[in-house]
């Protein structure tokens, strides 16, 4: 019996070697097959494909104030977006002017957006009743100077739709 046991153990020894090598071969088949198929490369050549690289419509890039062709935006300084922002990334600086009807009215002076503290939670966009805000497709946020991340969203010379009416 002891002899049989030895035979079995020797058999197991060689079976271990065989099954081990076979399992290694299976793994090598996977990597080897990818090696022979250059079509499976998934790398995107980023700076070269800048022209064709299109982000999805919903992509949350930078916040922007929508301006129409007459350089008009629709912010009416209600401050909802600033209040909704969890990080205090939006600051709305306004000035009070005398309206046509004699009542003082708030007019947007600077819509300040701190990109450095923004966490792209997207609470501000649906909060706006005037639909004045949206996220654009920009994703290259890197700058050399941190101060450049503080942006003024209303374009120079733009005015609000509501004041013009």
């Amino acid at each position: 019996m002891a002899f049989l046991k030895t035979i079995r153990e020797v058999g197991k020894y060689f079976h271990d070697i065989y099954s081990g090598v076979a399992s290694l071969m299976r793994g090598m088949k996977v990597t080897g097959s990818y090696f022979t198929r250059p079509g499976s490369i998934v790398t995107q050549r980023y700076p070269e494909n800048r022209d064709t690289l299109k982000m999805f419509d919903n992509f949350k890039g930078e916040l922007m104030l929508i301006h129409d062709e007459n350089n008009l935006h629709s912010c009416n300084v209600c401050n909802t977006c600033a209040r909704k922002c969890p990080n205090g990334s939006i600051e709305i600086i306004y000035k009070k002017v005398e309206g046509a009807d004699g009542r003082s009215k708030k007019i947007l002076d600077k819509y300040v957006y701190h990109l450095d503290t923004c966490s792209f939670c997207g609470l501000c966009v649906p909060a706006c009743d005037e639909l004045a805000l949206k996220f654009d497709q920009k994703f290259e946020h890197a700058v050399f100077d941190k101060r450049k991340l503080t942006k003024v969203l209303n374009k120079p010379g733009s005015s609000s739709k509501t004041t013009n009416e």
Partner: protein
Amino acid sequence: MDIELKEKEEYIINMGPQHPSTHGVLRFELCLLGEQVKYVIPHCGYIHRGIEKMCEHLTYPQLVHLTDRMDYLSAHINNEAVALCVEKSMNVEVSDRVKYIRTILSELTRIASHQLWWSAFGMDLGALTTFFYGLRDREKILDIFEESTGSRLTQSFITPGGLMGDVHPNFQKRVAEFIKYFRKKLPEYDQLLTGNVIFRERTKGIGIMSKEDAIDYGVTGPSGRGSGFHCDIRKIEPYSAYPFVEVNEVTLTEGDTYARYLVRIKEMWESLNILEQLVDNVPAGPIMLELKAIKAPKGEYYQRVETARGELGVYIVSDGGPSPARMKFRSPNFSNLFIINKLAAGHKIADLVAISGSLDLVIPDIDR
């Protein structure tokens, strides 16, 4: 305390806070006896941001985005936990459409998380190619997320009361495509790693965790289920669309590193099955409830969900104000971490790496 007093002349090594195998800023204090690990003391807190304190200053919709940053690999599920807890406190129910979409997103998140875990686990064991295969397939899921939610990692899409927006019209088609794609790719994972003789030798019988230990230490998720601990919240307290689908809890009884590995691989198959049941049946309906103000009434609320790593508990104490008076996240990784000394003591350094890899720790979730 498993740890005896430190003797003189011990060979102490600090593994971390910057170390390739701790996957983040976690520090293991190792006492070595040659190659053998005598004991491990985990030191955490390197990425403690005080999320629970920050939540006390934010309104409920605002604090959702902080939960993304806890376990960033299951961001959707963390969001869902908060949303469910707040909805439970307000005693409202979202539409079936929201429930279905939430569950699809959660299951996609689970697959993505397991894919990243698989990649990193292979790296831990020295198989460098796994990393790229896992990430290649995860990219498909992230594209689905990006198309619908606008972000790839920290989506903040699920919010108390519903969703931040409707999903993209392509959503269901892309998910169905992904299911087909990934069913083809998953066997490759097995060929590359699961069947490999070196891998089996490295993981089988290493770091055996008994069921009692798992319950005692509160080790949940795939790590706990590898020990036979039936801890799947999707089965115990079904939420969202889980009551509508057939969920099979994957459990194994060996409790070693290989069992924890297999549970995750099988869970990916299981998640694909769940997705398949859901993706063609998404009903129509509103995506956001019409609520005057989203705030929890006075009281205490607790919601358990199953993230990719285990049981996430959200505990809200509210005074009825716009912000919670106390927000506690019972994060799965916090409990999963501290069993490591029990599992790794007596094994080799290489085994410690395998064990900590098989526990699938995400450090920001431990520290919060």
